[in-house]
């Protein structure tokens, strides 16, 4: 088995009495886009800080590119690009000064790729960061993360504040990056960009891993949604007693069913009621994720 880009084993972090992350075990293969999803406060940023050796795990361990994220953080930082979730730039430094100084600090002499990135993202280089909009600061943050062509990119909410054009440009850049065999670890609380880009996703909630799989497998695991239309109104009880069936919206002769059990009895029941139309598809991933995100309010208080 090749060395994982990221591998965590029972990784946990506690702040005082608060358990921000509990026994997280995930593996990210090289050359993948890995989506790390969860609602606000789920523990995504805490995980990322431990992957970068910015915070020390309370339990377990994190390996990044085969290196211990805490003990060997200098080498990890050499090979990783990082975009913080709450990007804070130096207010009085211009974009150009940020790029120049951070490139020098990394020992980078060739700034041609940084220049290309600045052009692609139309980065405002000559104004101090304090005068930049949220989107323009974010674009500068992306350049700082990508400019040294790292083997692994750890990006926390990377498209926050970007307009749709720049989101497209970002997605192209991510695809180019993985096409070169590099890896992108993408944290987000929004599903859209993750399902467009990610090969695999992990979902955490209240500091615990809820699911990890490929986007396609997750899609397949969503309930089948059947929308049937009949000539006459039908009683929902006809379907409600069937195994694995939940009756959803109902409007006259139209009824929506969510099916997680065997489908044949459902189709038989529909066929017996003289249907005029039937539409079947898997539920949107959004619905699955909303379902997974939902939890008792008492468990919500988590540090992120």
């Amino acid at each position, binding site marked *: 088995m090749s060395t994982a880009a990221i591998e965590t084993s029972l990784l946990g972090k506690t702040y005082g009495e608060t358990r921000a992350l509990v026994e997280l075990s995930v593996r990210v293969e090289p050359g993948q886009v890995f989506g790390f999803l969860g609602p606000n406060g789920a523990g995504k940023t805490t995980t990322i*800080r431990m992957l*970068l050796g*910015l*915070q*020390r795990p309370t339990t377990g361990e994190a390996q990044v590119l085969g290196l211990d994220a805490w003990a060997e953080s*200098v*080498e990890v*930082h*050499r090979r*990783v690009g*990082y975009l*913080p979730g*709450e*990007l*804070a*730039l*130096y207010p*009085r*430094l211009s974009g150009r000064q940020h790029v120049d*100084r*951070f490139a*020098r*600090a*990394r*020992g980078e002499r060739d700034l041609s790729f940084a220049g290309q990135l600045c052009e692609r993202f139309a980065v405002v280089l000559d104004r101090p960061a304090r005068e930049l909009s949220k989107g323009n600061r974010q674009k500068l943050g992306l350049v*700082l993360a990508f400019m040294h062509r790292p083997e692994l990119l750890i990006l926390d909410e990377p498209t926050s504040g970007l307009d749709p054009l720049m989101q497209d440009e970002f997605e192209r850049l991510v695809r180019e990056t993985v096409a070169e065999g590099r890896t992108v670890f993408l944290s987000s609380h929004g599903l859209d960009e993750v399902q467009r880009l990610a090969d695999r996703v992990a979902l955490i909630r209240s500091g615990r891993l809820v699911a990890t799989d490929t986007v396609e497998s997750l899609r397949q695991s969503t309930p089948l949604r059947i929308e049937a239309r009949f000539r006459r109104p039908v009683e929902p009880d006809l379907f409600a007693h069937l195994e694995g069936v939940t009756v959803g919206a109902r409007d006259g002769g139209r009824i929506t069913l969510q099916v997680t059990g065997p489908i044949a009895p459902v189709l038989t029941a529909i066929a017996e009621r003289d249907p005029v139309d039937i539409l079947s598809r898997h539920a949107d991933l959004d619905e699955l994720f909303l379902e997974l995100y939902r939890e008792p309010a008492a468990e919500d208080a988590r540090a992120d």
Partner: protein
Amino acid sequence: MPTEIARLDLFLRRRSLIGYSLGMAVYTLVVVALYPAFEHSTSLDTLVKNDATVSALFGVTGTLSTPGGWLNGNIYANFLPLLMLLLTIGYGAASLAGQDEDGTLCLIAALPVRRATVVVEKAAAMALQAATLAAAVAVFVLIGRFFDVTVSVANVASISATTLLLGLDFGLVTMAIGARTGSRATALGAGTALAAASFLLGSLASVVSWLHPARFASLFYWSVADNQITRGASLADYAVLLAVALAALYAATLSFRRLDLH
């Protein structure tokens, strides 16, 4: 580049450093230029000679009308250490804990440099800022020769160095507290309180007899309050100040290596 972190902080603080240095230089020039008007004033000498409390208040160990006494009473025993401590304690609190609270430190901490290197570079940036301020004052004190303020170059260099070390001591202690707690306010408060206590102890110890032996516990005693301007700093002065600076630097490094950053 290995010095980029120090250079970045110096660049960001260049305006305040220029302001501090320029302000202190102008103040020094005014002080030395006024000296001829007071050099034969016997009433000033009487004032401090007959009242040890007033003498302690001004930080004067001899007479005010001598060049050394004049410089001590107006610059080295009070105003310069105060400005020096404002500079170093302020930077000590901001450089690690403050930048972590602002969120900019994670950009630095994600660079391929050891945390100990970050601390050492920031300590170097602090030393350079303190040296600039001390040097600006020293230059204008030496210009004081044209106004009869004749003190030896060696003694001016010596007290400039001990003032710099005094600033470094409290600045690095503040930095260490910031690295331990991650809180700029705590670091600033604790650093300032320690400096004020040290100053008070140094001042009171010279007038309150039972406190006299405690003067050794004040870093002001080892830097400016033991007549260093006229006798030059001793090896013991340098050793104490340097030892405190190194201990504080070590403590800051140890604490920062364990600090959870944001």
